[in-house]
């Protein structure tokens, strides 16, 4: 009698999650330094925002990589639901890693938060997209956000948003990857 092979998703999701989590963090931190070292132009589309959007676009492929690694390990037979779970877990690990590294980074560069805050506020001050009367409130909100970088609420919110966005997006990409790269097992028919 052949032993039943237990197919664990953790190798694939762990590897894809860690790799993409690191990549997303790297893109985000590069974007932040671009904002810090650029002259303020008044354009609210700063390097930080652009980097997070690019990071997210790249991060979506984490679910695909998770499914690919799983297929490499166990072969192409997988259900669509398995692809979705692999994508979801990859997204959650990715969110965890990128948020954790974002929290660690200011410990290496002590002036990071202050420099980023100064650059963001300078951009809002020069912006012509916001009515003058509302600028002060936005500057106050930005200041409060940066000052609360290490508050429990801010940390929890950061993790939650990462889990929701990366988790759901990678769930969808994992699902699509399972459909196009995997093979439906006989049992599902």
């Amino acid at each position, binding site marked *: 009698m052949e032993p039943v092979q237990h197919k664990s998703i953790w190798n694939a999701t762990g590897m894809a999650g860690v790799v993409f989590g690191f990549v997303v963090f790297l893109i985000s931190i590069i974007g932040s330094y671009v904002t810090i070292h650029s002259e303020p132009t008044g354009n609210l589309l700063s390097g930080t925002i652009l980097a997070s959007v690019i990071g997210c676009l790249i991060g979506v492929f984490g679910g695909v990589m998770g499914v690919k690694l799983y297929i490499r390990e166990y072969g192409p037979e997988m259900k669509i639901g398995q692809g979705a779970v692999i994508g979801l877990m990859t997204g959650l690990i990715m969110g965890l890693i990128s948020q954790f590294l974002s929290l660690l980074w200011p410990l290496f560069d002590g002036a990071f938060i202050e420099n980023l805050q100064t650059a963001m506020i300078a951009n809002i001050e020069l912006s012509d997209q916001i009515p003058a009367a509302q600028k002060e409130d936005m500057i106050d909100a930005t200041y409060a956000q940066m000052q609360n970088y290490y508050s429990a609420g801010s940390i929890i919110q950061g993790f939650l*948003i990462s889990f929701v966005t990366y988790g759901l*997006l990678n769930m969808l990409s994992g699902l*699509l990857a399972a459909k196009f790269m995997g093979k439906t097992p006989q049992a599902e028919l």
Partner: protein
Amino acid sequence: MKHSQEPIDMHAARQRSANPVLHPLFYLVVLPASLFFAFAAWSPPLFYSTVPEWFDSWQKALFSQVCHQQPDRTLYIRDVPLAVCSRCTGIYTALLAALATLSFFFTFVIKVKLYIMRMFVMASLILVLDGASNLFQVWQTPDFIRLLTGAFWGFATGALLIFSLVVPRKRKRGDNLYGTCST
């Protein structure tokens, strides 16, 4: 009398006979998530009345990692911007619309899968081309065009998701593969 002895391909026969259905993931996760994101995208004008309130809102924070949310590239309702840019507004709205409507016609969707793939590739190319051109200031498209390009991509993605979530239904034990036979 000579009988033909063709081997019966049980797997192919089973595939032919199984009724396609939408995977439960569609009803449990994909549709509710899409409804939530569309609501979150459109909801700031319901809850806030000024731009600073919007700036500090959970809706803006939620989409901060997936959209640039520039105030000058966002649709306004009652002087309050939506949570995402005009292109993303189109994406989330059309995605929900596509999922909601095409879920009733999924048997048709699987018949036109090739067209859906082509539509998705074309929509992605348009989205990337227009997005990059706007970003690098090659040209600037008005909000309405951005909304349309986003809506096209959202609809194509919705159709692709519907196609991906159609699975042959599991056969119950005891079901006769070739129908009932009475003597």
